[in-house]
C-alpha cells in the first residue's frame, strides 16, 4: 500500500498522527509529513483508521 496525502485538503486535525504515529507526523513547521510512504502490512489497521478518521478526506491509499 502507498499512502497519499492531499496537503491542500489537510486541516491539521492531527487524528492521523494519533491513529498511526509511525506513518504521520505534524512537524514544527506546521505541516503534515508522511514518514512512511509505503508502510508495512502490519500497519494496515492503523493506516485504515487514519484514513477513516480524517475529517477532510485528505488521506488515501493506493495498492
Amino acid at each position: 500500500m502507498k499512502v497519499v496525502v492531499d496537503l491542500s485538503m489537510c486541516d491539521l486535525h492531527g487524528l492521523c498522527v494519533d491513529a498511526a504515529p509511525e506513518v504521520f507526523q505534524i512537524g514544527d513547521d506546521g505541516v503534515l509529513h508522511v514518514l512512511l510512504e509505503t508502510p508495512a502490512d502490519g500497519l494496515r489497521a492503523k493506516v485504515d483508521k487514519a484514513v477513516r478518521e480524517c475529517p477532510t478526506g485528505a488521506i488515501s491509499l493506493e495498492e
Partner: protein
Amino acid sequence: MLRRIAIVGASLAGLRAAETLRDRGFDGELTLIGDEPHRPYDRPPLSKQVLQGAWEPEQTFFRKKDGYDALALDMRLGVRAVSVDLRARRVALADGTNVDYDRLIIATGARPRTIPDMAPRTGLLVLRGLDDAIALRRAMMDAPRVAIIGGGFIGLEVAASCRARGLPVTVIEALPVPLSPILGPTLGDMVAAMHRDHGVDLRTGVVVTDVLGESRATGVALSDGSRFDADVVVVGIGVTPNTEWLEGSGLTIDNGLVCNASGEAAPGVYAAGDVARVANRWHGDAPRIEHWTNAVEQAVHAAENALAGPGASTSFSSVPYFWSDQYDRRIQFIGGARPHDEIRIVDGSLADRKLTALYRRGDRLVACLALNQPHALIKYRKLLAADASWKAALSGTAAS
C-alpha cells in the same frame, strides 16, 4: 459463520462501519439502510461551505473518488427502518420489506429538537440534513433578516455563515454566556465577543416565547418582552436521538441506545454515533456524544467487534474531540470540561483570539482547547489519553 450484516443509518457512522467491515475482510451480504434519499454525505460542511455558497450540495457526498462498487453494498435509501425483532434477527422497513441479519449495527443518529407546540410555517427552519441546508441556503438568497434560536455550535456557525453573506442576524441564547457549559465562561465570553465584533446581534439570558407570523415566520418574541422582525428563523436547540423505532424491541433506551464497552446493545447488536451511549473507559461513563470523530471511532469499533464476536471484543476508550469553524477561527476541543474547571491559557491570548487553554479538575488535566493553534492538540491529546496529571500537563510531559 457470519453471512449477513445489516447497518441501519446511512450517514457517517453507518458508512464508516460498512467500510471497516470490508477493510477487515467481511465478504458476506452487507445492507445499508437510510431514511434519506441521498447517498452518505458529510454534515460539517453544511453549516459552513454549503450555506456560504462555496460548495454545491453534491460536494458533501462521501466516496466521490472511490465510489461504492468496491463496498458491494445492498443500499436501501429513502426507506426508514420501523422495528427490529431481536429473536428473529430481522429489521422491518417502512416499505414492507424485511432485512435479516446475523449482526446488526445501529447508527440512526439524531434529529433536531423543535420548540414544543410551535406550528411549522414557511421560513421556520432547522439545520441537520442536506435538504435542510439546501432549504436554508435558498431562504438566505433573498437577503432576509435572520433570527437564530439557540447560541450553540450549530447556531453560531450558521450566524457566522449569515454574516459571511452580509445578512443581518440575531442570535437568542438562554444562557448568560453561550457555550459556557462546554467551554467554560471565559472562553464562552470570548466567542460571544467575536460574534458581536462581526456584527451579530447576540442576545443572551433570554428565551423565545413565540415565533410570530401565521403561514410564514415574520419575527420573534422574547421573554424580556421585546420582539423583532425576522424573515427566516432557524431553530438550533440541540438534537434528540432517533430511537423510537427501537421501542418495544427489548433494547435499553435512555437518552440514546445504551451499550456496553464493546459497543453492544444486545448480543449481536451494536451501535455507533449520535444515537449511541457506548461505555467509554476514558470517560468513566456512557455519554451520548454528538461529535463527528466519535461517530467514526465508534463505527470502526462496532464493526471490528461485530466481526470478532463477544469472546474477542475490545473495550471502547476515546478522548472526545470536536472542532467548530466560525469566521477565520477554528475552535478545537479535546476532552471534557465542566463549568467550574480551572482554565489556564498556556499559549497565546484571549485578546489575539489565538490560544491554547488547558482545563484542570483536581490534580488532573481534563480538556484542552486550541483556537487557531492546531499543532498544540497533538501534544495534549496524548497527555489526555494517558490521563496526565495537571503538573505533567504544564510541564508538557506524560511522566509524573
